[in-house]
């Protein structure tokens, strides 16, 4: 009796220990090797840090084939909101960042404020590439005093609107993309269409995905029409409460929530991708980079059901990035060469093919591969033609150094209104005070 009991205890202990071990090993994530681990051999490993979908996989293979001494290791973080603080810490600490890092427009000002942390790409022959980029994108990569070229442009977030053809048809709405575009010259028309849609379909399917994506879209549109500012002016002073663009975008989004159009899932969260798969929303604002995300999360089942129409209020832009090389890189020359390759017209065409990220290079924009490209996932929508023309004429909106923190705070309040937990009347004041706090001025 004693013996068996004892053995039982040992077995149980062993079981627990092995389970603990399994859990521990399962959790120890592979963070990837840090930059510069090429070391003794001739092979150099270049680490690329990026977020979302950049569509670079094929390009890496191509580059590795052309440069046998280079190995590329990409560390992708799905959400920009998770990526930014990590990158900030790496850059501030002077260690940990990849040899090539992607910087999104909303955080570019933050990093441009530390020009000494980044390599001047002109030292590695980037000066000659000026005409490979639309002027504002090139300018956006310069440090504030114009003394350094910190980043080379990747994509442009030209704006369109994605919608579900099948659900529109079901609601008795037109499903042809030109006819759909005509449904909503303004955002108010868009809301009316949404009400109409909801009255016909109802149930689990809402008209829009997350109110915050629409808010950002309208905000960038409004800012582009006016002062080209959102929460901060060019001297990084907090101007959210006096900027009519922010209030206009806020009011329009609140109207959408009040009309019951919003699904209210948080953009890019698990519930968002679930809702996407389960047909729980019928439209989503579609900056060019969004096409890749919808395809990635929507999966094969929705191929051909989505289409791309014009956005209410005309044009606009949201997102778009640059690639930079931190000075902490041990292989700045090789890293700069990789940046030049990835942002070259050919590289941008490659990224466009893979993820539909709209090129910021005029040559690429005019390339037949882009211009004539019809996206089969989006019912053969001619995405090159839909997005292309706006890219060259875009006026960049100035996004302050603390843009992302403030954006997240305001988005949270917008979501609270959609959840019905915050009254629209007191919501604005709360958003302003939350935003101030997030900016560190409250």
């Amino acid at each position, binding site marked *: 009796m004693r013996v068996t009991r004892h053995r039982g205890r040992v077995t149980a202990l062993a079981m*627990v220990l092995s389970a603990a071990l399994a*859990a521990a090993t399962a959790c120890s994530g592979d963070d990837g090797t840090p930059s510069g681990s090429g070391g003794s051999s001739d092979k150099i490993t270049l680490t690329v840090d990026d977020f979302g979908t950049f569509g670079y996989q094929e390009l890496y293979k191509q580059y590795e084939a052309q440069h046998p001494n280079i190995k590329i290791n990409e560390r992708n973080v799905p959400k920009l909101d998770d990526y930014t603080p990590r990158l900030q810490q790496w850059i*501030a600490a002077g260690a940990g960042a990849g040899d090539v890092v992607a910087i999104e427009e909303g955080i570019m000002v933050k990093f441009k404020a530390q020009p000494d942390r980044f390599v001047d790409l002109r030292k590695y022959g980037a000066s000659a590439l000026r005409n490979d980029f639309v002027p504002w994108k090139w300018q956006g990569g310069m440090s504030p005093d114009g003394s350094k070229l910190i980043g080379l442009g990747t994509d442009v977030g030209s704006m369109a609107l994605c919608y579900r053809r099948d659900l529109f048809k079901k609601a008795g709405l037109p499903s042809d993309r030109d006819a759909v575009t005509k449904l909503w010259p303004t955002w108010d028309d868009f809301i009316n269409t949404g009400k109409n849609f909801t009255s016909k379909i109802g149930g689990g399917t809402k008209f829009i995905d997350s109110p915050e994506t629409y808010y950002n879209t309208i905000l960038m549109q409004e800012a582009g029409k006016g002062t080209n500012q959102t929460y901060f002016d060019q001297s990084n002073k907090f101007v959210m409460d006096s900027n009519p663009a922010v209030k206009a975008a806020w009011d329009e989004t609140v109207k959408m929530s009040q009309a019951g159009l919003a699904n209210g899932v948080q953009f890019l969260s698990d*519930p968002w991708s*679930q809702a996407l798969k389960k047909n729980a929303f019928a439209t989503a604002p579609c900056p060019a980079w969004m096409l890749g995300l919808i395809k990635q999360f929507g999966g094969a089942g929705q191929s051909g059901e989505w289409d791309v129409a014009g956005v209410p209020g005309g044009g606009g832009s949201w997102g778009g990035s640059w690639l930079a090389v931190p000075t902490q890189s041990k292989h700045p020359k090789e890293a700069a060469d990789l940046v030049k390759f990835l942002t070259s017209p050919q590289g941008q065409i490659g990224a466009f093919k893979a993820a539909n990220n709209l090129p910021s290079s005029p040559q690429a924009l005019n390339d037949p591969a882009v211009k004539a490209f019809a996206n089969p996932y989006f019912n053969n929508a001619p995405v090159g033609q839909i997005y292309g023309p706006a890219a060259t004429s875009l006026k960049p909106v100035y996004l302050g150094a603390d843009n992302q923190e403030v954006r*997240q705070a305001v988005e*949270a309040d917008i979501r609270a209104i959609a959840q019905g937990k915050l009254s629209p009347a007191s919501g604005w004041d709360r958003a302003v005070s939350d935003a101030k*706090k997030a900016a560190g001025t409250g």
Partner: protein
Amino acid sequence: MAVDLRPAPAGVRAAPSGRGRIRARLSQLDLTLSPYLYISPFYLLFVVFGLFPLGYTFWVSLNHWEIIGGHQYIGLRNYRALLADDQFWNAVGNTFGMFVIATVPQLLLALMLAGALNRRMRAPTLFRMGVLLPLVTSVAAVAIVFTQLYGRDYGMANWVLHFFGVHKIDWQANKWSSWLAVATMVDWRWTGYNALIFLAGMQAIPQSLYEAAAIDGASRTRQFWRITVPLLRPTIVFVSIVSTIGGLQLFTEPLLFNNGYMNGGSLRQSQTVAMYMFENAFQRFQYGYGSAVAWMLFLLILVFSLLNFLIIRRLAGGRT
């Protein structure tokens, strides 16, 4: 097992020569100092990795310290701002709310579970180890699975509730529902562990007390409340203090419950103090302010553990 290397005490007595005296002095030192030397590795590590960071965090909290640029000494300004910060007090409220609705049922349940496990049964080891199994699973896995169960549109909790005519609950959107959801995750993981600790305490209670009580005609329930609980007092104090510390540091569960967002919901419904600390220090990169939050959390835990200790000592003691 251990070999006794100490010199025999007899050597001390018979040591007139000079050499002998040194030896005696050394062995005296050995007797008084060695124990400290033996336990010193822990304390050295504690000083380096525990005490020093604690002090340094306090120093940082007295500064305005951001990620770039230098830092400047501002005295207690961070703390003054913190006391007037409604987001901080919201986090404190959430933390205590979740702590109470997680810990109180958890400890009661653990106590009852331990009482049940303490009876004579078949395969006791199996059951005793079984209650520990949830602890072996990783926190992240638990939080992710539970978050899916509490999904607004496709979660199992809402699916079950709809049979009872309950309308879809947006678990993250309400304070009460998000607290409840997080509390269940905590309980699922820790109830078994606490039950085992209680069980260990129960097994140390002499059987004769129960026999005597049974002879006097006390029922099982009466035995439980009159013998088990009072004699378990040290264990209860230990368990409740450990749960207090763990509960007030709650972080991973509410974080994953909110899809990894540090703000803990659209209106910060389930943001804990630990999350607020992280948000300030590593997202807003206000290291000084974040450190002040960390110190406030430390003080809160200290005060609350003490309170807990006093209350439980009184409660459990009052029964005897």
